[in-house]
């Protein structure tokens, strides 16, 4: 140990001047980028959350914590928080579940054309979200929409408070579960054949193999999918913007959509910043909980 520390402090061999320049320039650009587009705006938003701030008319008046206090009594905000948590939980769960089931099915040795299925499942992921959402909006039309026509239903999916958020969730899961398919497929391909063979030799049936070998080995992939999904879905708003505009009434407001409205419709940047920081805390807590749960399972 003492030796390795000593090695650390030994002078490194002289690097070519050009390499040093390249390194410094690269680091400077990266730092400048992050500082300009992340650190400074986040700092400005944090300070702005304590102000009555409207950049359109130049208003910037210090109001202390009143933007945060106002949130406590803002029913729409808390409804949006509830909706966001529900939306996030349901969509993350089904994205991971469907993603795993499809990937496991494709992974089967009896399935041919694996690349075809992977491509088909992944295509919605790379399709533009706004375009896909507009298509789904038409599919949800109560009289002439494809969904009601196929299912023989007469449901006003987007204007019924009991189905509107569900409709947004269904569209989002359909759009995004291909991402989980590809990641799980990569995880499955990385599993050691020897371990799987050994489990079979030890008498594992298919279900036991899945439950006791495959799923535990895929835990890092699951964690990645869940954490990435949570971060993504806590910020979701495009679906709501296009499909329901928060309606009927306020029943499908998600927090990010509310923030968008506050900032870019009402130009109330102060309260939008306060909401953003509350959302930031939720995201951090949800991510930490996911790590904790996964770490607990791994132990």
């Amino acid at each position: 140990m003492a030796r390795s520390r000593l090695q650390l402090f030994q002078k490194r061999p002289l690097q070519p001047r050009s390499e040093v320049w390249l390194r410094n320039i690269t680091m400077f650009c990266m730092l400048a980028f992050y500082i300009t587009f992340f650190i400074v705006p986040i700092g400005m938003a944090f300070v702005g959350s304590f102000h009555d701030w409207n950049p359109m008319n130049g208003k910037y008046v210090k109001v202390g914590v009143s933007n945060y206090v106002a949130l406590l009594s803002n029913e729409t905000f808390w409804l949006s928080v509830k909706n966001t948590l529900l939306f996030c939980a349901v969509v993350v769960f089904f994205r991971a579940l469907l993603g795993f089931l499809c990937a496991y099915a494709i992974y089967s040795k009896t399935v041919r054309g694996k690349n075809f299925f992977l491509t088909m499942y992944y295509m919605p992921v790379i399709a533009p979200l706004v375009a896909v959402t507009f298509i789904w909006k038409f599919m949800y039309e109560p009289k002439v929409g494809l969904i009601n026509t196929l299912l023989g239903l007469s449901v006003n999916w987007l204007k019924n408070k009991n189905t509107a958020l569900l409709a947004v969730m269904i569209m989002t899961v359909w759009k995004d579960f291909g991402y989980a398919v590809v990641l799980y497929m990569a995880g499955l391909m990385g599993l050691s054949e020897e371990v799987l063979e050994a489990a079979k030799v030890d008498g594992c049936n298919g279900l036991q193999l899945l439950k006791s070998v495959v799923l535990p080995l895929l835990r890092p992939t699951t964690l990645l999918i869940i954490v990435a999904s949570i971060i993504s879905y806590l910020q979701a708003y495009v679906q709501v913007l296009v499909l329901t505009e928060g309606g009927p009434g306020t029943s499908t407001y998600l927090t990010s959509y509310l923030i968008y409205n506050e900032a870019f419709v009402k130009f109330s940047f102060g309260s939008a910043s306060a909401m953003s920081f509350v959302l930031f805390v939720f995201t951090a807590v949800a991510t930490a909980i996911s790590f904790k749960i996964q770490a607990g399972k791994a132990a």
Partner: protein
Amino acid sequence: MKKKLLSVLLACTMVLGLCACGDQAGSAAPEDTADTVQTQAAADTATADSASSETTADTATVSDQAFGDTIKYDPTVPVNNGEPISIDYWLWTSDELWQSVMDKYMAIHPNVTINTINNPYDDYWVKLPLALEGADGPTLFNMHISYHDSVIKNLAPYDIPLEDIRADFNNVEPHVIDGQVYYLDTGVMTGSIFYNKDMWEAAGLTEADIPETWDEFFEVAKKLTIREDGQLIQAGFEFNNYINSNYLMGIQYQLGQNMFNDDMKTVTINNDAEVKVMQMLLDAYNVYEVGEADFCEDSIVSFATGQTAMVSSWGWLNDYMKANFPDINFGVFQVPVFDKNNIYAYNRSNTESTFGINKNADPAQIAVAQDIVKFLLADNESLLNLALGQSVFPTKKSLANDPALEQNAALYCLKDTVDQYVFPGALPSFFETYLAEAGEEILYNGVDIRTALQTAEDKINADLAGMDFTACEDAYTPRK
């Protein structure tokens, strides 16, 4: 080979997907909020109109003589000393109507290049205020009165004497700020009833049946409603998705109820008149059974696709229908009233605006923009084309009796009563947001009318409290 086939298949699928996306985006326009649509659609349809019989853009002529009423424009005076100059001009959606104005101007001044930049309406009002704050904002842009507060501090005043503007135009006073104007109205618009003439005829109705009161209206609507086995096949009347802009923000004027209290700074939404309007709408579905909340998510789409016989809409629908749904044979009549012997006003009015000029632009570019504004205000041909294309009643005094207006049904039905509409001022866009929420809470979520209206009133007043806004409803004088 397999891989090649697969690639071709996938490529075709993506292309088809993109085609489908394009179509959807286009048809989605009417599902936006009303003001969004009215301007978007007016812009959309301008293209078709410029080629239709209603506008005269194709026959636009470039004069080498000074023209105009009080505001005169002399095309022989060089701009920027004849040196080449270019400016950016922003507008929303593809709009050959406005482009024809620019083309006409550039034909007079070939040294001026106007770079027209299109933006979707919703993005436009996010991007434009931010762009005007910086150094890269457009020199010239299309304005909308709903977004007055978002851009006013970056507007340059028109470099035209106010008395000349007053001499040529109506409706100038709401735009005067400290003796200057920053934009004007090309025309005034409002809501009317659009009806499907073929359905009207099939129901045995004639022009003599055009209703003047709401009671008469619902009797007609019942005749236009078709059900088979209890299922609604054809709605006589629908209002889905437009409760806010077409009803709660206008029909209450018929009962003498303003949106604003006497201070003109706070609103009253939870009042007897608004309750009566909302109850009338609910009765249309629940009592008269002439439509259903779940029939079609958007009543304008339903009308445009031949599923509904009558809808209320603002004038933009006239051109939108002609451009996008030419097979629908429709007419327009004035919105009915509760009591035809006691009319305070028919509805709310709003306006389409002239250009805004970015005061932060280069002075030479600002000078060009000022010249374009002067050209537009002096050029009756362009203003008439805009009025017809946007279905707005022209504010230029000399165009008020132009025979060409008779070609536009949405304008013609207003000819005798255009002074009986209340202009409340440049209402902030959250009015529509909160009243749309209230309407949906009542119609779809079963919330009590008073509760929903009170929630909307509280939200609007809370937001107004943070603004320096004064309505001008008190400037309206009802006919004696």
